[in-house]
């Protein structure tokens, strides 16, 4: 009787995410239902430095981690006894920041004799979408963030095939650098997105399509082109409107991202296209993708709401559920792995 029952028992996974500048803990039911989701952001603290300072991020994580854990359990009205397993971001990310989450997870698992699962941060970003909609395979995911620009093909749960990736800068990185050149405050991405909507495309910035059939990306040429254009204009005393620069730059990025995603979706005959990562919050990108995939028969575009695009622990618990049910386990010697492959 007990065995039969267990098949239908609900599963609660607690996720911990500290790979960059958010200390986050969440509890997810059956891999799909958000029970608690707490994120302590450090953005304000890093603003004065114009970017995330790894040592400062690590210091905040250790100050916050037990408070965030407590808040998540309180929000869920649960104790550790109700939790089936602990999932934690193992990498990639800032090593000092990751270490806080990994060691908190190990301590928690040890204290309560719970299984422990390490999760890849990008797998997390993809699985944020499963909190909204069940996956249908094959599935293509465009992952765009400050550190990533990747096209990932999935044929089943927990299997990730990277079919395209950036050869230099990540899309989010290019956004931040261009924003800095335009003297916009950190983080620059949302500011460019906002400006772009006020301006128009006046400059035809380059698009790196790379060789025929490649799903790889490259944004460093575009970034240099924007910086050079601004520099030359300044020397010739020509005034360029920042909103037009932003619009032109964003157009180029979005054009490449959506075109390659569309092509890959067709080639692999996918049923769903999922957009993941911080840049998925970009309104211009959302609009363009919705446009591109409108009217595609049998193909569904999924873009998570803003609070699930940025780093959170619900996505780690969601991805961790899959890993846990596949039998993956981490030992007491688990370490942070800043270069963890997907």
């Amino acid at each position, binding site marked *: 009787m007990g065995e039969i029952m267990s098949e239908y028992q609900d599963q609660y996974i607690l996720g911990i995410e500290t790979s960059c500048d958010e200390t986050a803990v969440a509890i997810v039911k059956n891999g799909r239902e958000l029970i608690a989701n707490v994120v302590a952001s450090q953005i304000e603290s890093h603003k004065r430095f114009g970017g995330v*300072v790894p040592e400062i991020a690590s*210091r905040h994580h*250790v100050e916050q981690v037990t408070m965030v854990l407590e808040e998540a359990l309180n929000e869920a009205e649960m104790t550790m006894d109700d939790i089936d397993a602990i999932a934690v971001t193992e990498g990639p990310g800032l090593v000092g920041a990751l270490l*806080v989450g990994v060691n908190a997870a190990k*301590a928690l698992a*040890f204290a309560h004799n719970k299984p422990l699962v390490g999760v890849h941060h990008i797998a997390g970003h993809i699985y944020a979408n499963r909190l909204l909609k069940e996956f249908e395979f094959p599935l293509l995911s465009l992952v765009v963030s400050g550190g990533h620009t990747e096209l990932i093909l999935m044929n089943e749960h927990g299997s990730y095939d990277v079919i395209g990736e950036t050869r230099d800068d990540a899309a989010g990185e290019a956004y931040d650098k261009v924003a800095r050149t335009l003297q916009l405050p950190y983080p620059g991405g949302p500011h460019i997105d906002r400006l772009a909507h006020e301006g128009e495309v006046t400059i035809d910035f380059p698009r790196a399509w790379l060789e025929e059939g490649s799903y790889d990306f490259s944004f460093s040429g575009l970034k240099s082109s924007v910086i050079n254009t601004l520099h030359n204009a300044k020397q010739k005393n020509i005034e360029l409107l920042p909103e037009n620069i932003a619009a032109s730059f964003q157009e180029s990025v979005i054009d490449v991202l959506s075109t390659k995603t569309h092509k890959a979706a067709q080639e692999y005959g996918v049923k769903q296209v999922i957009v993941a990562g911080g840049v998925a919050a970009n309104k211009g990108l959302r609009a363009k993708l919705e446009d591109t995939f409108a009217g595609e028969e049998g193909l569904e575009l999924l873009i998570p709401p803003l609070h699930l695009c940025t780093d959170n622990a619900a996505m780690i618990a969601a991805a961790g559920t899959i890993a846990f049910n596949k039998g993956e386990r981490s030992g007491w010697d688990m370490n942070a792995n800043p270069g963890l492959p997907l």
Partner: protein
Amino acid sequence: MNVLAIDTSNQPLGVAVLKNSQVVAEYTKNIKKNHSVQLMPVINQLMSEAGLQPSELDRIAVANGPGSFTGIRIGLTTAKTLAWSLNIPIVAMSSLELLAYNGFYSNSLICPFFDARRGQVYTGLYQNEQSELRLEKEEVNILMEEWLKALKEYDQPIMFLSHDLDAHRETIVNTLGEQAILPDLPVHLPQAGVLAKVAMTKEPVDVHSLTPNYLRLAEAEAKWIQKQQES
């Protein structure tokens, strides 16, 4: 009382288990290895050899720095999470004070220190007073030469304790001469067993607000403050 004590604030890794108020297991290693990989397996092994379940612990003790920023955080995160989730008190001790206990039975002043690169050290001055360690001179991050000049003012012998002793031996001898006691015995590694024992009577602290004792700002922050002062 059952206590688990953790120290990963510097290169040595220390874990001790106190069962029924006795140190039943103590582990010390001074090999350059990754504390994050080693700490939990050591805790797991000592606890199981001591025949203790985590739920049977009454208290967690941790050395909260100074030392390696990353090392401090590994120990502190582990200790804080254990204490919070087991709902038991946590006791924190300065890593320098813990090391100073190795000179507890000496009549001299005790100067524990950790190398902090570029001629700097994390250090403080302690003395045994009525079977308690008293902080004689506040813990600082300072150039060793400058610190030694200040120590010269004390007209008493001073015992130096540090696993980085060799790197600073010459400077110490040159400045303090006979005043300096540099023990040749292996008393330069902190003992987690001492941490566990002292923690039995030391006042616990609030787990959420317990933070590392870095003694030094993050570099970016120091630069930022300097820039604000200049402008």
